[in-house]
């Protein structure tokens, strides 16, 4: 405990001296009396004998109460604090402001949006800091951005930074912000340190990395004072979010109308009605499609199919917009969809049979890929260049100009093993954006793919494969394994199979295969068997991806090729591989975008055009990586279409696609609005071993900052206690003054 009053020692001495006051007053009053000659002394004596002890006891209590009151008064004037402070109350502090600018901070409350409330509160606190304090502002979202100010004691700069803070579409990851705050405080030279976190304290934000979060908080609390500033929030808004926008065909043809799967999820606690979704393609007026969303129960996701035309060959911008809910920040999804007019597919067959092609492992897969009719490229035989090669005949050059490669029936015989040269080329193929699908067969070594699982040829030095093959998978024909459709993650490339009629994929029966084990951390298990075992694992590597399936590609131990959902399933896999190649053109807010410009533009300086901001952001020249130029940016906090344009060109001003422009789409982080529930102050306090100071923007706006709370000063509570004791003294004094 410490005392914040500069003259606390003198006050303490005065307080001790003041104890004698009630006693002096008591005797002073006793010395001022009137004399009355009295006859009936025996009755007076009797009444005195009867009452004196009670009166004296009451007076003693009253005296003690008054002494306690004076002591408390002196104590309050000393301004006690439960925390050990350096210097007095006006000592400067190193202050760090962590301001949450995530999507949920866009929710409009009576007092303005949550971000506006946070900014106002930050201003109030900024004004209340002691002079010579330093200020550091950290913006937190997916990443933490150290905003400065450049001169930590310059409050005008700090005010300007706070005023300029903008809403992002990111989810919050508090941990990096806290770690940054620890670092900033560690650099601070002042003895007193304070960390302010301005946030709506969304429950989902605090569940992430909770153990690490607590450790970071504990470190911060050791370094200085932690103050949580929670924005005012009323009832949760009736919110629905667009969570998925994906073409339902693997390869959309340019100039054709393409069906898109749009998923809408109710993230609020009430049933939503009257929602509509509009999809816009190349020509917003002509190609838009609007559809009403059926009533959505809380947590329910509705799949909608909307169509639009994609005119351009190459990258097309498609936008889905949701109308009718109360929170706009997650009502728009943009996507870059690439159209192609040709697709090269290579199938490596480990069990070729020229005499009876139906016995080949690739028979059903090749037929699925060749089956035609319809609007999509996959269904056009002219557009698909299919090359089926026996495993023993495979050589690296066959992968040239190939977009997708299927490995089927490998590892079942000595001749069904791939050569090392081919596998090495396969690694490069994947790293350069190729798609690889591996059906179950033998072990990795038997397939010759063990080189992919090692560091050989891998830029990261780790396995390119999402998993390893385990033991053979067997099930009795009477109790075959089926697919668990509910295991498909929402928003994944297989999410279309969660809904009728394609959900019949779940009826596929499998009795043989090979288990997927040693699933890597960055692998997506997009489908599982009914017993929970992984059935399909996907791992991305740059713009390429590798899919491993736990079932055979032919009819051995599975009836998948005969199922109606087989063709869409194969299409979905190809679509995923191709979108991955286009892909990484569609990222989530806060993700890092990497682009490889043409080699002839390696020396070109580029700028980034951020949606809603007319000022280009300088990206500089690309860096060379493995002899290819690369440009990366993490300034992707806002959802929308971003453009990377050469600096100093007309495109920089207009943003028009002149052929030198790269486009990418950023969508809001769906995690942020998946649950809008916020933590109550009590729940928040429970997450800390040492209870932090909790303020609300509401109280800050009305009353300003009471620094006594920040400094753990007891004085306000002492004044209340003194007030209560004064009232008690008055009542008790009145009661003592009554007849006994």
């Amino acid at each position, binding site marked *: 405990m410490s005392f914040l009053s500069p003259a606390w020692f003198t006050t303490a001495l005065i307080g001790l001296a003041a104890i004698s006051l009630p006693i002096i007053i008591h005797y002073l*009053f*006793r010395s*001022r*009396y*009137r*004399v*009355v*000659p*009295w*006859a*009936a*002394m*025996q*009755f*007076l*004596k*009797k*009444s*005195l004998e*009867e*009452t004196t002890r009670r*009166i004296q006891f009451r007076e003693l209590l009253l005296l003690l109460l008054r002494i306690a009151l004076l002591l408390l008064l002196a104590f309050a004037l000393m301004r006690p604090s439960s925390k050990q402070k350096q210097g007095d109350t006006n000592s400067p502090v190193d202050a760090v402001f962590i301001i949450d600018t995530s999507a949920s901070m866009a929710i409009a409350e009576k007092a303005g949006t949550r971000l506006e409330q946070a900014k106002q509160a930050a201003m109030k606190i900024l004004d209340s800091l002691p002079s010579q304090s330093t200020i550091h502002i950290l913006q937190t979202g997916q990443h933490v951005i150290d905003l400065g100010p450049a001169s930590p004691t310059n409050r005008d700069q700090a005010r300007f930074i706070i005023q300029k803070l903008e809403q992002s579409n990111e989810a919050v990851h508090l941990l990096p912000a806290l770690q940054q705050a620890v670092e900033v405080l560690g650099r601070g030279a002042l003895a007193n340190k304070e960390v302010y976190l301005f946030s709506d304290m969304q429950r989902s934000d605090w569940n992430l990395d909770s153990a690490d979060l607590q450790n970071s908080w504990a470190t911060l609390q050791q370094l200085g004072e932690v103050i949580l500033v929670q924005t005012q929030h009323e009832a949760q808004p009736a919110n629905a979010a667009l969570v998925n926008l994906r073409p339902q065909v693997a390869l959309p043809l340019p100039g054709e109308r393409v069906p898109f799967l749009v998923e809408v999820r109710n993230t609020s606690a009430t049933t939503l009605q009257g929602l509509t979704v509009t999809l816009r393609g190349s020509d917003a007026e002509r190609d838009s499609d609007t559809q009403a969303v059926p009533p959505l129960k809380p947590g329910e996701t509705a799949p909608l199919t909307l169509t639009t035309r994609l005119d351009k060959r190459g990258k097309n911008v498609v936008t889905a917009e949701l109308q009718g809910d109360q929170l706009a920040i997650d009502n728009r999804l943009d996507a870059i969809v690439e159209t192609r007019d040709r697709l090269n597919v290579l199938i490596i067959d480990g069990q070729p049979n020229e005499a009876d092609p139906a016995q080949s492992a690739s028979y059903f897969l090749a037929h699925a890929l060749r089956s035609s009719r319809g609007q999509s490229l996959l269904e056009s035989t002219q557009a698909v260049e299919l090359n089926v090669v026996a495993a023993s005949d495979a050589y690296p050059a066959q992968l040239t100009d190939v977009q997708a490669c299927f490995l089927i029936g490998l590892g079942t015989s000595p001749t069904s093993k791939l050569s090392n040269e081919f596998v090495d080329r396969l690694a490069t193929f994947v790293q350069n954006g190729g798609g690889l699908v591996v059906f179950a067969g033998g072990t990795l070594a038997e397939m010759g793919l063990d080189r992919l699982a090692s560091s050989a040829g891998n830029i990261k030095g780790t396995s390119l494969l999402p998993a390893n093959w385990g033991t053979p998978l067997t099930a009795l024909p009477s109790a075959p394994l089926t697919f668990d459709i509910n295991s498909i993650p929402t928003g994944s490339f297989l999410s279309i199979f969660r809904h009728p009629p394609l959900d019949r994929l779940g009826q596929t029966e499998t009795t043989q295969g090979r288990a997927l084990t040693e699933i890597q951390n960055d692998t997506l298990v997009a489908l599982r068997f009914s017993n929970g075992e992984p059935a399909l694992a996907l791992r991305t590597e740059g713009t390429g991806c590798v899919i491993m399936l736990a079932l055979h590609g032919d009819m051995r131990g599975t009836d998948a090729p005969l199922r109606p959902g087989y063709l869409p399933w194969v299409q979905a896999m190809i679509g995923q591989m191709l979108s991955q190649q286009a892909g990484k053109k569609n990222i989530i807010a806060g993700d890092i975008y990497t682009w490889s410009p043409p080699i002839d533009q390696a020396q070109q300086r580029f700028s980034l055009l951020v949606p809603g901001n007319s000022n280009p952001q300088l990206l500089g020249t690309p860096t060379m990586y493995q002899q290819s130029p690369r440009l990366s940016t993490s300034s992707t906090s806002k959802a929308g279409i971003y453009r990377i344009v050469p600096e100093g060109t007309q495109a920089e001003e207009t943003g028009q696609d002149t052929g030198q422009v790269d486009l990418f789409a950023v969508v809001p982080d769906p995690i942020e609005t998946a649950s809008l529930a916020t933590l109550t102050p009590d729940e928040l306090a429970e997450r800390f071993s040492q209870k932090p100071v909790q303020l609300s923007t509401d109280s800050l706006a009305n009353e300003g900052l009471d620094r006594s709370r920040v400094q753990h000063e007891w004085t306000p509570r002492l004044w209340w206690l003194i007030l209560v004791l004064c009232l008690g003294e008055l009542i008790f004094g009145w009661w003592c*003054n*009554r*007849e*006994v």
Partner: protein
Amino acid sequence: MPLTLPADAVARAEALGIQARAIVEGLRIGDHRSPYRGFSVEFVQHREYVPGDDLRHIDWKVYGRNERYTIKQYQQETNFVGRLVVDVSKSMEYGEGQQNKLAYAKMLAATLSYVIINQGDACSLDLFDETWRQRIPPSSQPAQIRSILLALEAVEPADKTTLAPLLHELADSTKRRGLFFLISDCFDEPAALLQALQHLRYQGHEVTLLHVLHPDEMAFPFEGHIRFDGLEDATRYLTRPHLLRSAYRRAFQAYQEELRMGCEAQQVDYVLADTSQPLAGLVSQWLSRRLRMRRM
């Protein structure tokens, strides 16, 4: 300079008069019943003649009817001796002006003495505190009034009250039954006082206790810090009287109730003489009540 009698009180007392409710023994024929049968105007009974009786009292009409000598007897009317016993101790000094207890007691005694003598009865005065301060023997002479008034005027409070032994002494020394008027604040042990009153009653006296009290002594209306100095001793109490008002009143009312009940049991007429009440009012109320009771 003798004490000046209060005109209104005397006028009311004279109009009502003081009548002996019990039988009193007088020295001469008066207005009050005497225990002695005589030959006065009021016939009481016949009795048989015994030698020695005065032949003048033989009822010859009875002899004419039944040839027996019968003596005719009459109730002898007599005057009474009213004994005023007045407390002049220091405790009677309390009160200001007309509410002073001693002054009130003096005026009360003077009024009674005047009325008694004026109606032809004898009156005596005994002033006491710890001992007899002054004693004026009974007399029905008009000059007795002056003597009493002078004595009352002259006396000053000096000592504490010791009432019971003096009353016992008085009861023993007074042979003739008469009327006792005890005027005092009775700040003594109630049990001893009641015993002394019982003694007087046993001797056949009619006793009236005129309990002189100041309203402060009953209500105890003091506020603030007050030091109470005892009038009869050196005791001092510094206190805040409002805190113990209830306790004081309880103690005082208990004492007063004991005294009143004790008097009722002894057939002693208890009269509360509140010094805030005008003397004329007190006298007229008391004597009116006394008159009503005599007729019952």
